[in-house]
């Protein structure tokens, strides 16, 4: 009888402990759904408010005082050009630094400094990069509030992302690949350029895409360098035959980008402009999320297909 009672008690304890398992499972799912529902709500709200504004005119019109006629032509062209500069700067410099750190660097204090420094830079708030750009690019170098300044700023901002992911990609390549190449008499650079970079390419690309998707949505540093919000013209096109339109004039042109245009429309009291902001946000979010999706897919494929 006593045994039976004890059994009952034990069972009750086990049941109550197991109940906690179920409760936590539900709580965990609820916590996940807070995040995912927010994402869904964000998306839905933009679609409801912004989708009606997404006509062809929206992409080919300049911003205007009348909400109904405003468009994002100067914003998307500006974003594209700034991204071009960012990519031209961050990709070579980032990949080269990663190759240096992973393949060439000796283990000494200087290498340690570079490594700690990169970790640290990844944690610097983006607005501080804006201040750096304001002091350095805009006033010290005299680039002005131009596409070049903005592109370089965002390039510096995403440099740690590109470096870290390239290093991971290189580290994942087994040592025997290097040894095989060296055994055939390859120099260090031949090993890097003929083997390591091609094999690490999916990982490197993932980092570049994630970096660029972060840069394209970055607002604070670009506001800090003083990008104008009302731009109703495009940067000069090279090779138009006019004397003023030199090859690189566009680099020094004033500009606006998508996030700044959104900020501008959001901060106006008139709700008609909010619809514009929603439409532009929808374009931007679809762009960044699809870049992220490509990166995730690349990483997934990479993990699946690689068998050394």
């Amino acid at each position: 009888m006593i045994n039976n009672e004890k059994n009952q008690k034990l069972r009750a304890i086990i049941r109550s402990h197991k109940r906690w398992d179920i409760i936590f499972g539900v709580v965990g799912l609820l916590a996940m759904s807070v995040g995912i529902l927010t994402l869904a709500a964000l998306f839905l709200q933009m679609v409801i408010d912004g989708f009606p504004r997404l006509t062809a005119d929206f992409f080919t019109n300049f911003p205007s005082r009348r909400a109904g006629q405003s468009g994002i032509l100067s914003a998307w062209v500006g974003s594209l050009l700034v991204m071009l500069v960012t990519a031209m700067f961050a990709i070579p410099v980032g990949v080269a630094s990663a190759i240096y750190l992973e393949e060439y660097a000796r283990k000494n204090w200087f290498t340690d400094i570079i490594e700690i420094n990169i970790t640290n830079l990844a944690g610097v708030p983006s607005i501080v990069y804006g201040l750096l750009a304001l002091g350095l690019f805009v006033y010290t170098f005299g680039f002005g509030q131009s596409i070049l300044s903005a592109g370089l700023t965002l390039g510096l901002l995403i440099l740690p992302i590109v470096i870290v992911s390239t290093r991971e990609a290189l580290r994942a390549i087994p040592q025997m690949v290097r040894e095989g190449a060296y055994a055939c008499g390859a120099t260090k650079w031949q090993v890097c350029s003929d083997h390591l970079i091609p094999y690490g390419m999916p990982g490197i690309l993932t980092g570049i895409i994630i970096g660029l998707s972060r840069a394209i949505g970055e607002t604070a540093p670009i506001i800090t360098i003083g990008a104008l919000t009302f731009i109703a013209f495009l940067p000069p096109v090279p090779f138009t035959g006019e004397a003023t339109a030199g090859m690189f004039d566009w680099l020094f042109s004033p500009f606006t980008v998508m996030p700044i245009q959104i900020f501008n429309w959001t901060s106006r009291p008139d709700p008609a402009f909010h619809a514009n902001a929603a439409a532009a946000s929808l374009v931007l979010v679809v762009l960044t999320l699809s870049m992220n999706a490509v990166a995730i897919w690349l990483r997934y494929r990479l993990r699946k297909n690689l068998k050394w």
Partner: protein
Amino acid sequence: MSNPPLTGEARLAQLAKSKAARKRKDKMIEGILLLAACVSVFTTLAIVYILLKESLVFFSHVPVWQFLTDSQWTPLFDDAHFGISVLLAGTISSSAVALLIAIPLGTIIAIYLSEFAGHKSREVLKPLLELLSGVPTIIYGFFALLVVTPLIQKIYPDLPTFNILSAGIVMGIMIIPYVSSLSEDAMRSVPMSLREGAYALGSTRFQTATRVVVPAAFSGIASAYILGISRAVGETMILAVAAGMQPNLTLNPLEPAATVTSFIVQVALGDLPHGSIGYQTIFAAGLTLMLMTLSFNLLGYWLRRKYREAY
């Protein structure tokens, strides 16, 4: 091949020469790569130099003591006051709201993904959650101002249009993936044998998770929290859009307030002449921000070092 192939000494000499050339080229390439690696060091030096240079000019006009103790922040008025505590109050209250959301939710999600979810659902849920950190912050700002604030106003009608609360909530949701991903990585690196030991003693999943895995992964989880804090402190656009930009010495999240970051945005939006005291205040504010995030990063680094359990 017009020349006949070289033989003997001549061939060896030719080989040695081409080897030397190859080595020279390799050295040159190494130099170029090193130069690229130094760009990041130069970036840090440039940040420190620019912030210090402009801040020193600022502090020659405004004593440091006043900067730290004054309770007003009116740098652009005739009667200028420079009390950074006003902006810090905004930063602290908004970060507190964000962390109250991000830390509990992030931790629960991390435990759930690492200990409860099956392999398949983790593979789907984790990237989906990481998309949260891929959304541009300006869009979160827009969302906070035009969706979350009206929503809270339905429950609490006295809430002003611009307030710290809704900006903080949205910021917290944005930070969730930073906290959860890193914490989950830390928990997953806890060796299986510890879990198996716990299960063998009759623990349930929940007990294993909270009494074995979480304490064992503590250093990683703590550094994930610190990364979250440093993100919250440095976040700019959500606050600039949804929290209003007027300086307000209060810790009450139901009021509008400016933060260190949104003040910089506000000044940059205006038309301040280069070299004026207003222009220099943003560098002083930036220096404050940089020192805060730097100390958090160092704290995280130290925690990881000190409490790392080696298996």
